[in-house]
C-alpha cells in the first residue's frame, strides 16, 4: 500500500516534470524558429514527445530507481527512436501502412513498456 502511494507520488511528480520539459522545449524551439507560428511549433514539439520521448521514457521507467529523470528523458528518447524506427519498418513490411502508425504505434510501445514494467513498479 505504502509502495503504491509512493509510486503514485513519483509518477505525479514526473508528470509535472514532463510537462515542464514540454513547455520549455516549445519555448526554446519558438526562439530558434521564430518565423514559425507558435501553434505549429507546439504541434511539432508535442509530436516529437509523443512519437519518441514518451515511448522511450516508458521503456526506461523500469530503471526509474537507478537513473534520474534527466538521464531517462534523454537516453529514453534515443531508445524511443530505435524502437519506433525499427518496429515501424518491420510492421510496414508486414502490411501496416506507415501512414497509419503515427498515433497507434507510439501508444502501443508506451502501453507495452508500462505493462512489462508493471510488476516492478508495483514493488516500488
Amino acid at each position, binding site marked *: 500500500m505504502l509502495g503504491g502511494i509512493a509510486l503514485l507520488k513519483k509518477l505525479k511528480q514526473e508528470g509535472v516534470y514532463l510537462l515542464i520539459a514540454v513547455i520549455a522545449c516549445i519555448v526554446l524551439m519558438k526562439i530558434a524558429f521564430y518565423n514559425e507560428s507558435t501553434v505549429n511549433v507546439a504541434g511539432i514539439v508535442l509530436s516529437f514527445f509523443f512519437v519518441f520521448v514518451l515511448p522511450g521514457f516508458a521503456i526506461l521507467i523500469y530503471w526509474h530507481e537507478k537513473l534520474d529523470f534527466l538521464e531517462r528523458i534523454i537516453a529514453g528518447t534515443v531508445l524511443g*527512436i530505435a524502437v519506433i524506427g525499427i518496429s515501424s519498418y518491420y510492421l510496414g513490411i508486414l502490411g501496416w501502412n506507415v501512414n497509419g502508425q503515427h498515433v497507434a504505434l507510439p501508444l502501443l510501445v508506451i502501453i507495452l513498456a508500462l505493462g512489462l514494467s508493471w510488476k516492478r513498479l508495483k514493488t516500488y
Partner: protein
Amino acid sequence: MPSFRADMDAEKAFLAVFIALFLYFGPGIVFSHSINHAYPWAIQASDAFQHQARVESIKAMGNYYNEASWISAGFDDAVGFYPPLMYHAAILFSNLGGMETYDGLYLFVFLSVLLSILLLYICIKRFDSVIAILSLPLTFLLFSVAENHVGPLQSFTFGVWPAFIGHLFLIALLWALLNIELERSYILLALVMSGMALGHTSELIIGILFIAVYLVFEYVIRQLSVSKLKTIIIAGGISFLVSLYYLIIFKYTWAYVQPFKFEVQSTTSDPTLYLADLSILLAVLGIGLILAIISFAKKRHLVLLFSFFALLVSFSNYIGFGRHAFRIRAFWPVYLAVFFGFALYYGGKLLVKEWKELYAGAASLLMIALILAGIPLIPQLPLEPAGSIMDQYHWDMFDWIKSNTEKEATIFYFYGDIYQHNALLRNSERRNVEINRNEYIEALQSGNLNRFMNATIHGDGGGVWYAYRDGLFDYGYHLTEKGRDYFYGQKDLCGFEYYVFDKGTSIQQLQPLIEANMAIAQTYANAGMEGVFQNEVVLVLKNNNVGGDCFAQKA
C-alpha cells in the same frame, strides 16, 4: 533516490540556454528560422535529395519493402536497401507534426544530433559534471565551415544524415555500457545495437570494435565479470535477431557491391575536418588529450576510453576505413568535446580555486560566445541561411508531373542547372532520363544534334546496382544484367512521353545551352508535341506520338 528538482538549478538553466543557442545557431539559421518550407530547403547536394526523395517515397508506398520505381530507374522490384530507421522515424514524426517529409526528416536529423550531444553530456557527467559542462562549447563547431574543403556544416546540407543517426547510437552504446551493471541491461544494449544496425550499419562495425575494446579494458582493470559477458552475449543475440532481416539485405547489397578493401586514403571529398582546420584549437585539444590521458591513468573511466577510441577510429582512413573515418572526423566537435572540457577545466584552475557548476556554465557560455563571434584562428561559423538548390518553379514542375502524368511515363530532361544533382529528379515520381550533358554541348558546337544521342536513365544504382530479390538469399542485379549501355547509352530523343526544358541558367557561359533547349522545344512543338506545363523557368512538353519523327521539322 536520484531526484530532479523543479526549481531550476545551475545545470538545468545552463542546459536550457545551451539548447536554445544550439537550436538558434544551428537548425534555426540553416532553416531561416522556419520549420515548414514550400519546397526542400537548405539542401545543397544530390545525396541530401536522395534521402529527401526516399523518405517521401516510403510515405507514398506505405512501407520500405522495395525501393520506389522512380528511385530505381523504373524497376519496381529493386529491394529497399538503405538503413531504414531514420526514414521510418521521420515519417511518423512528420505525419503527426503536420510537416512535409523533407522538413520533418531534416529537423529529425538536427534533433538527433542535439540528442547525441546531450547523451554524451550525461555520460561525461558520470566522470565529472564540471568537465561535462565545459565540454559543450566545442559542439558548436558542427556548424562550422572549412576553407579549402567541405566542412562539418555541409554534413547537414550535403545530406550525410544517416551517419548522424549512426553517431547517435554509437554514443548510446557508450551510455548502455556505462549502465551494464543494471538489472536486465541487455535490453538497453540490444536496442542500441539494433539501432546501429538499422540506423547506419557501418557504425555497427565500429560499435562492435568498441565493445571488443571495452572487454579488453574491463579485463585489464579486473572488472570483467561473467554477468557482463552474459549481458553482452544476450544483447548481441537479441539485436542480431532483430536486425537479421535487414542484415541479409545489407549482405547482398552494400557488402556485396562495396566490399571492404584496403585503401589508404588521406583526403576525401566528403564533409570532414582535418587537423589543420582546428588551428589554435588543435593546441587546446592536444593539451586536453594529454590531461585526459594522465587522468585516465589514475581514474580509468569508460568515457575517456570512448573518446580515445573515437579519435583513433577517425584516423582509420589510413588502415582502409576510408570515408567512414572522415565522417567520424566531421563529428569531432562532439567526440573530442571531453578533451576541450579537460583543457578548460585545468586552464581555469589557474583562475578558479574550486570549480562549481555555476562557474562552469558561465565559462562555457563565454566560450560559445567567442566561437559564435568568429574569433580568428578557429573554424568559422557562417551564421547565414544555407539556401537551397531547389526553387519554387522546379518544385511546382515536379509537383505537376507527379500529379498529372501517367505512372508509367518517362520524363526526359534537356539541360538544366540543377539537374546535375540528379537525385532531385526523383521528385517527379516517374522514370527520369537526362541528356548526356557533355555530348549535348559537343553536338551543339559541331551542329550534329540528332535524334539518337547518349542519355542517362537516372536512379540510385551506383551503390547497390539495383539489387532485387529472387529469394531470401538469392539476389540479382539489374545494373549488371542490363549492362551499362542500357543506362548510359544511346536513346531515341523522340521516344519519351514528356520533355522538360529549362528556360534559364544562372551561369552566363551556358546560355547557349538554354537557347538550344528552346530551339529543340520549338522543333518538338512543330512536330505536334503540346505544351502541358510551364512557368518562368521551365517548360514541359507532352509527346503524343512516341517514337515518331520529332526531328523532322527543325526550328
